[in-house]
């Protein structure tokens, strides 16, 4: 009884591609701000569009529009102060820190995300040397899953992958990221990290809602 104009997975490709790109953009925003990374950010965003949908986008557009070498150096220092150290970090970028009672790293949540990576045949290149629940890794994992989704044509598998992403967002990213972003927003005057944090937090909750709704739709199909 199949009567399709265009296979579902083809229809969904642009959706997953856009999500993958967005996760990659977020990843870029939280990489050490080298000239190359900043150029990557600049070329990745349609700022007019982003500005319209989100205040964070507006801040970022303003930042990218006024980039000088001096500014880049300041961002490098700021990045180190917020996320690298030495010394107490203004915004530690690891999930365990926000979820464990004693604000430690390498706690059970790190195990949980490691288990997810392993389940998909992946491992952190620095496994057991640095924690697996770093922001950049969790974002990379999401873009990896979005990419898998793009390549998948089996309906069941598509649903399964969507569920995995929903679960990862629900059990991990959307739980700790709001606290992380709050720390960034409270502690920085950098337009780059202010904008990035606002965008990150809102995109994740938006993505979660979208995926849940998509799953409802696809389950009914």
């Amino acid at each position, binding site marked *: 009884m199949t009567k399709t104009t265009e296979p*579902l997975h083809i229809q969904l490709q642009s*959706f997953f591609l856009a999500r993958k790109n967005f996760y990659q*953009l977020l990843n870029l925003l939280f990489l050490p701000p080298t000239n190359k990374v900043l150029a990557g950010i600049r070329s*990745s965003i349609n700022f007019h*569009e982003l500005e319209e949908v*989100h205040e964070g986008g507006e801040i970022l557009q303003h930042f990218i529009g006024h980039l000088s070498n001096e500014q880049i150096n300041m961002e490098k220092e700021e990045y180190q102060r917020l996320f690298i150290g*030495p010394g107490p970090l203004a915004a530690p970028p690891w999930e365990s820190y926000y979820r464990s009672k004693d604000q430690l790293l390498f706690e059970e949540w790190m195990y949980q995300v490691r*288990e997810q990576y392993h389940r998909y045949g992946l*491992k952190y290149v620095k496994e057991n040397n640095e924690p697996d629940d770093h922001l950049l890794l969790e974002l990379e994992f999401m873009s990896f899953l979005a990419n898998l989704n793009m390549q998948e044509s089996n309906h069941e598998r598509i649903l399964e992958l969507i569920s995995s992403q929903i679960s990862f967002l629900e059990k991990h990213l959307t739980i700790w990221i709001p606290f992380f972003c709050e720390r960034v927003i409270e502690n920085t005057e950098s337009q780059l990290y202010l904008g990035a944090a606002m965008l990150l937090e809102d995109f994740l909750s938006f993505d979660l809602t979208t995926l849940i709704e998509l799953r409802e739709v696809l389950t009914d199909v």
Partner: protein
Amino acid sequence: MSEKNHLMTLLTNKMQRRTFLKWSGAIGIPVIAGGIGTKMLVDRKGEQKVVNAKEKEKIFSTCSINNCGGRCVIKAHVKDGVVVRVSTDSQESGDLSTPPLRACVRGRNYRSMLYHPDRLKYPMKRIGKRGEGKFKRISWEEAIETIASEVKRIGDQYGPESRYVNYASGQSWGLHGGKNAARKLLSLTGGFLNYRNDYSSGAGNVATPYTYGTNNSGSSFDSLLHSKYFILWGQNPSEMIFSTPYREYLMQAKKNGAKIIVIDPRYTDTAVAFADEWIPILPTTDNAMMDAMGYVIITENLHDQAFLDKYCIGFDGDHMPDGIPKQESLKSYLLGEKDGVAKTPEWAEEICRVPADKIREIAREYAKTKPAALIQGWAAQRQAYGEQFMRGGAQLACLTGNVGKLGGWAAGTGYWSRSDIVYPFSYKNPVKASIPCFLWTKAVEYGVEMTPADGLEGTEKLTTNIKCIFNMAGNMLINQHSDINKTVKLLEDESKVEFIVVSDLFMTPSAKFADILLPGTTFFERYDIGVPWCFGDYVVFGDKTIDPLYECRDEYDVFAEVAEKLGVKDKFTEGKTILDLVKESVERTKKELDPNFPTFDEFRKKGVYHFKYDTPLIGFKDQIDDLENHPFETPSGKIELFSKALWEMNKHDEIPAIAKYIPAWEGPEDPLKETFPFQLISWHYKRRCHSTYDNQPWLEEAAKQEMWVNTKDAEKRGINNGDRVQVQNERGSLFIDVKVTPRIAPGVVGIPQGAWYSPDKEGVDQRGSVNVLTSQRPTPLAKANPQLTNLVEVKKA
């Protein structure tokens, strides 16, 4: 409805303002181009096993080698490369030959230290002004290259005496450690300026040998089971541990019926746990009470004349060294024959505030109850005339004949040791010059002006000031040395010390002053063997439980690479890894020192080795049993209550030949007390080991950083429990919360030592780092730290 329409309807209708289409439109161009952002998640390549929560834990027995007197057994439960929890020695108590080596609250926190988010993770170089705290992440290659070239440059330019490895105790009781690695590197490239002595028992270490010829005046803990009476004078093993099994023996002695007196300005946890009686005393006045006890013992004829006649020099006029007037004797001093002041309990009460009758009572009990152990802590010798305290205790032990006898105690510094292991990692410094460790800031500023009168040894004169400092796992660079404000100023001047290397786990106040900052490893991440301070018949295996985290590295490996740059790597490592050193120590200890010592595998499995002995070690037993064949190691071969060597220094006011009370500068008799009315002391807090762990929140919950003030003093000043106060003197000022308590003597305030100096923008410490208020004036003989001698004013903030 087609699927496509369905989907589009969903995506356009359900999203309100922020629609998916808009979001996706905002990033129309593919983002990652040309390899920006290396992939961090990689293919597991055939590793089938998925980590899961049920995987079995593996238990490693390991050991911290910080500067705690105890060594406890730490069991690391490791699962999938992560230490998931720690436990401690599960040995039952009961058999005192194998006492349990259980961790205290600090040991229980080790996992939090290991996985603390603030760990130093990568090598850094300073980019701001020194001390400002601005750093840039660099590669290990750059760090090693910089160290090698600076070590060479400064050595070539100023000579080897310009290079200094600062006193540091974060890794102090193991086989290798950063300090030794730096020393070995410098030794192989021309040498470095040595230091002597320590910050713990500095005055005592120099003073006690003038009485006994050695600092090994203690006896093994099992001897305490024979003691009937204890005076713990300023000793607080409940909080600072001293040696892990010590309390087990004290508890047993108490069960055996011994009476325990604790003399301390504070009602310490030790007093709470063990004391039949707590005697509060004013800091720096202990010798007044000691003198009065001596007076009571002599005048009531309770002294052991036969012991004094046979073993001691200087008790009375008949036993003086040649050429010394009779009235210089100890007895003459106590009776006031020369100065007209009899050292009566009433005289002492005026000074030390212990009631005269109480002094009499304790003197009588101590002299009559045999055997009795007067055991001295070291806090009371970290004062202006700390030498007197150490020799004064020994004096009382001699008056009562408690030396060399089972259950007695010779007092003085009180080291004892009969168990040892082989240390295969060693160096030979070609430079002979040495300074007292406490005078390193002086050697930075006025090194070339120092003389033997400043404790300079091995040379008449230094050729240079200190220009390069290695500060490895230590906080003496800023926090733990006296007078922080003065030290900060000194180090901020980059023309004085030109290059500072710090290695540590966290961004300590000292680490902020690094030019090159290296991330070190915790004991979980390296092999070692932990030994207790000189007190205890046990050693603990330090297993490597996980690989070093982040880019943290063992200093041994780092300095081996620096050595390679300087062409001396082979001499540095002798081809050995850290694990090789540990194995060699175990094998050679078994072969050379103790045939019962376990093999490497046995030791690793068991985690601990207890040396066993049939009889207790009794300090000076050989000398007392047979003086002729076993003289004391003093010039006269006897116990020198009167030291002719000290007499000949001819500074009798500050360096007397017999131990006596000398009113301290910034003591209760100093006129400065009108301006700064409180005596400030510090103590080893149970939540820290010196300054280690100050950044651990869980321990702060266990014991908050706060200043103790006596209830009456607080009332007079309208200070309530929990209030924030400002504490200040001429050297500095700090803010701290207050604990109002009757557990500290009136007129005395106490700040637990080791809190990290945390200045606000005006440079005023907000955490209660006591060394903001302490003085760099050294003790007269030992040139040691007087850090418990301070007058301060306290005001409600």
